[in-house]
């Protein structure tokens, strides 16, 4: 009996230590990937290729989601606000909720699903097929050659995607609100312009999406690099990327919101 308790305790200790170790490893990993100067010539080309994979290919899902979320917000806001006779505030509602919250968060979740999982699977497969170790063997650091351009591409793409998401969402909201439901165009846009501040709302939203971009891409590339080099390991790593980055985004969003907008 006593032996069993100790065994459980050891298991718990192993679990905790394993997780702390992996956090530490991921920190060192990120540091090495970012702060090492790449020596090969075509690093711009590598970055552009990754920007295409990570950013441009995520554009469609981000645009479509943004459009529909903006349209739904306008529809829902209208159905409630019209009973108070203040349907002019729909523009304000759509813009503030998109710019402050939904834009960064939903883009980050979509990004984790669309681009993050792809990054993990790609890097994991590179590891499983020993491409990473053969790179090391010919004297190319895979951190610089494989990880760094993917990481930077994610960090750069995320705020841009969020900005596009916001704009498309607001345009979708104005399409539903102004063109279909007949809200007066002037009050829709002026209400929005008076309540949205560029630094406090748009700027903070962009800071959020930058933070999310760093976190999601970091998790994605690390999970790929750290994956068990088997097909099962890659599938697990991909799942972990989506789960961890979604949780991290939602948790960080609360903290960032509390710091930026709240009185905590």
């Amino acid at each position, binding site marked *: 009996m006593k032996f069993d308790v100790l065994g459980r305790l050891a298991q718990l200790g192993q679990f905790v230590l394993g997780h702390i170790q992996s956090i530490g490893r991921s920190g060192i990993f990120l540091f090495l990937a970012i702060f090492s100067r790449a020596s090969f010539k075509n690093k711009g080309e590598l970055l552009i290729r990754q*920007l295409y994979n990570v*950013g441009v290919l995520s*554009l469609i899902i981000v645009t479509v989601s943004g459009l529909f979320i903006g349209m739904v917000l306008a529809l829902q806001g209208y159905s409630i606000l019209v009973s108070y006779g203040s349907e002019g505030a729909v523009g304000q509602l759509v813009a503030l909720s998109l710019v402050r919250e939904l834009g960064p968060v939903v883009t980050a979740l979509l990004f984790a699903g669309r681009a993050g999982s792809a990054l993990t699977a790609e890097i994991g497969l590179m590891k499983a097929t020993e491409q990473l170790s053969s790179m090391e063997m010919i004297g190319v650091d895979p951190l610089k050659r494989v990880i760094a351009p993917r990481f930077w591409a994610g960090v750069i*793409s995320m705020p841009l995607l969020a*900005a596009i998401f916001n704009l498309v969402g*607001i345009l979708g909201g104005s399409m539903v609100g102004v063109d279909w439901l007949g809200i007066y165009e002037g009050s829709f846009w002026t209400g929005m312009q008076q309540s949205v501040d*560029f630094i406090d709302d748009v700027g903070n939203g962009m800071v959020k999406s930058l933070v999310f971009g760093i976190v999601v891409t970091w998790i994605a590339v690390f999970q790929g690099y750290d994956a068990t080099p088997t097909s099962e390991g890659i599938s697990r790593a991909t799942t972990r990327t989506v789960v961890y980055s979604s949780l991290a985004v939602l948790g960080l969003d609360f903290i960032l919101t509390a710091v930026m907008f709240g009185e905590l």
Partner: protein
Amino acid sequence: MRMRTVEISVGAFMLAGMLALVAMAVKVSGLTTSGSGETYELTAYFDNTGSLKPRAKISMAGVTIGKIKRVELDKDSYMAKVVMGIDSKVDNIPIDSTAAIVTAGLLGEQFISISIGGDDIYLQNGERFEDTQSALILEELIGKFLLGSVGKDN
């Protein structure tokens, strides 16, 4: 050749992102690049500004002629000092005009409406409206009605 299409689409993506930010700055947050040279400042003192906020509009005969720059408390008189930036094209506001805080609709945002006076002398940069009318606070009004003091005040 394939690399070229990738490069072009990445460039277009970057450009679209930047343009989205600029569009948000201009269209959504109403950030304008108009310098201070195009407006001149007028001030007005109010007993109560209600929920008047910076960047709210200033209208004359229903037409927007400027924006509110600052709302601050004047420590000496305990009144709210509102600094307005008026379009310099509108340089003929008579000195006895009235600035009133009004509400767009029952629950809408508040702004300042200027009623024209009849004087020949016009307000210059930095001068103040002598005649002002504070914000209508709905709760105070209801309270007065409940106490039956609306008729007695006047």
